[in-house]
């Protein structure tokens, strides 16, 4: 006997449907929209938010939030730039990711062991890590010249597909599998749905929640690497600035409930694309950029409204 899934369809498929509709509208209304370079731009420009969004989805699924990801990007990219400056590319990448892990462990432990609210903990981490990033190079931009490393961001598979496609695809697939096919994923969703019951069910909730913050920050580290490579510099002031809000917006539009529960990685990816598509659409139609912010706000509010409709 089959019963109809009573999951709200907007929560499950709202974001992909909205994305397709937006793409179709643009095909007809925006001049020169149908071209490979538009698609390519769309993905490369939203890659950072998509990668951050995957991590944010995990954290929000536990019922938490992480507003420190922008600062994590800044710190890890500064560490990376320092090492790449001395031509240690591999070491740079490894150390940068280890720094991200360390920040995640600290955040996770403050939240789980000392029971400080995620919003406050990550707010503190946001300030602290931004400060650390500035201290690392006296608050100034660190330029480096390393052709091998900066070329990496411009690699094109088969001459046309930017490396961003591959990175985002691999990370999104990994995130999806992790959240839907593993014990960890089940624990994350269960914790978001009922933390007390999950703890009593014998789940090591401290480990699970900390791991979610660690993974989220590692993904922020990856975004930091990608951005630092593309710009041949690390800017402690502007790197990752306000990116956390975009990542949260993408997650919410994508259909992961803010109160915790079922994570929707595919939705988050579509959410990030929708937000970027709006910017591109506004640009290509010669409308001032400021309008795109208003339009994004509308999309966020409408999507939450649709997800809250019962059946």
């Amino acid at each position: 006997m089959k019963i109809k899934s009573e999951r709200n369809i907007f929560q499950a498929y709202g974001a992909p449907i909205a994305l397709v509709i937006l793409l179709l509208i643009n095909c007809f209304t925006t001049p020169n929209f149908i071209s490979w370079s538009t698609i390519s731009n769309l993905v490369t420009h939203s890659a950072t938010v998509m990668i951050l969004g995957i991590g944010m989805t995990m954290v929000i699924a536990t019922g938490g939030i992480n507003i420190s990801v922008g600062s994590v990007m800044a710190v890890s990219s500064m560490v990376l730039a320092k090492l790449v400056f001395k031509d240690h590319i591999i070491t740079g990448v490894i150390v940068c990711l280890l720094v991200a892990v360390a920040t995640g462990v600290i955040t996770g432990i403050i939240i789980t062991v000392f029971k400080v609210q995620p919003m406050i903990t990550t707010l503190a981490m946001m300030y602290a890590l931004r400060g650390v990033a500035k201290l690392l190079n006296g608050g100034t931009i660190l330029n480096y010249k390393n052709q091998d490393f900066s070329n990496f961001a411009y690699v094109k598979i088969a001459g046309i597909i930017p490396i961003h496609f591959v990175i985002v695809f691999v990370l999104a697939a990994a995130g999806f599998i992790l959240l839907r096919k593993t014990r960890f994923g089940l624990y994350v969703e269960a914790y978001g749905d009922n933390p007390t019951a999950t703890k009593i069910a014998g789940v090591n909730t401290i480990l699970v929640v900390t791991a979610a913050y660690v993974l989220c920050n590692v993904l922020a580290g990856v975004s930091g690497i990608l951005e630092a490579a593309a710009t041949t510099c690390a800017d402690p002031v502007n790197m990752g600035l306000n990116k956390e809000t975009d990542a949260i917006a993408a997650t919410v539009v994508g259909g992961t409930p803010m109160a915790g529960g079922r994570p929707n990685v595919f939705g988050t990816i579509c959410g990030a694309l929708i937000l970027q598509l709006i910017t591109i659409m506004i640009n290509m139609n010669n409308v001032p950029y400021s309008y795109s912010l208003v339009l994004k706000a509308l999309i966020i509010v409408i999507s939450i409204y649709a997800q809250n409709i019962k059946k």
Partner: protein
Amino acid sequence: MKSIDKIFPGVKALKGVNFNLKSGEVHTLMGENGAGKSTLIKILTGVYEKDGGQIIFDGREVHFTNTLDPQKLGISTVYQELNMIPYLTVGENIYLGRYPKTRKGIDWKTLHENAQRELDDMGLSISSRERLNHYGTAAQQMVSIVRAISLHCRIVVLDEPTSSLDTKEVETLFGIIAKLKAKKIGIIFISHRLDEVYAISDRITVLKDGSYEGTYKPAELTQYELVRKMVGKEIIQEGINTRNYDGSNKEYVVEMEDIFYYPKVNGVSVAVKEGEIVGLAGLLGSGRTEVAQVLFGYAGNASGTIKVKGNKVKIKAPTDALKNGLAFVTENRREEGVIPNMTIRENISISGMPQISRWGFIQRKKQVALAEKYIQRLEIKTPTMEQKLKNLSGGNQQKVLLARWLATEPDLIILDEPTRGIDVGAKKEVEELIKEIAGQGIGVLLISSEITELVRNCDRIFVLREGKNQGVLLKEDISEERIMKQIVEHDPVSREVLT
């Protein structure tokens, strides 16, 4: 209410149900979980809209489309879960949203004077100016009844008001109900406790699977007949323990000695052998639940020694307990057990993950097989294992939680009030299951406030009082009378602990 229908997707929740209430009478609604009691109440209070039938109030037909309409007519509900604000004063709660005002603001003096008068009228020794959470559950419930009266209500719905009260508090509540009757207020009473129902009801309406089974006066209907009408199958009344458990050459699964957990537990010792059903008896607040929480690592700082299969262990968190082969079905199903938005399959398998996953990946086939096995074995009623757990009835949710823990293949299972809030039929099933579990060699620690339930099922009973061992009863000594005697007085005969 005449031939009320209510259809939910897939289920016809109510099929032509009739219900009428006279002023100044106590009319009890009885039925199993899923019989449609709550649905009927929700239609009367405007939470749901009816799909058929009529509601007639004071001779006029009325249509409720929201929850405000019934309130304007004076239909008021005192829910199982209290819907009041604990940090406000009693008076503020009574007049919530209707504060008397002067030109300068709220007229606190009048508010508290009026509130105090209402409270005194009901013969309650509750102060209007005290914060609500200063009082216990029972008093809070009384306050919410007083609020209903101050709204000049005509009908009060009391949905399982006694489930969290002790005997004395129930008496107070019944006193209040008598006063409500004198004020010509009609009362709809819902309870699972048969004795209370017979003590208080003027009439009883029985529902079964959404159908109307009839309305009776208590004198016309014996308890046995009532139960039969509710569950439609023969159930054994007041049985005695028919198990033949001989623990003389069995090993202890768990031994707890000198457990202290401030302030509720002050030196308790309890032990369970394999395949034995051990009961923890005692009044509310005797430390029964807390002992279980300590054993499962869910309590904070506790001291004492715990041995599992003869080895001393440290249990600091439920994870440790799980690793030591312990299982814990808690008393608060909704807060501490059910993961509401996840499927039955996921809810059953969450604790047994280590057995059904490899390298952290869930092995879907094993997971499905596990869920299937326990759905069948425990006869969990659901169309599919992909149903969200929140959509099942209380009894079936309880079975899912039992399944979750049985799937971990434990050596000891702690059952804290396993039959609370589930209907008579499901109760019987759960009790049979407990015996079956013990029959497989799993130790059972059973906590219940229903002494007869302990008498029916236990091989040994530890009686607790104010966080201390009061005595132990072995199989042949176990009787309701002996337990109650031990609770109230020191019974030197069986004072030795841990035989």
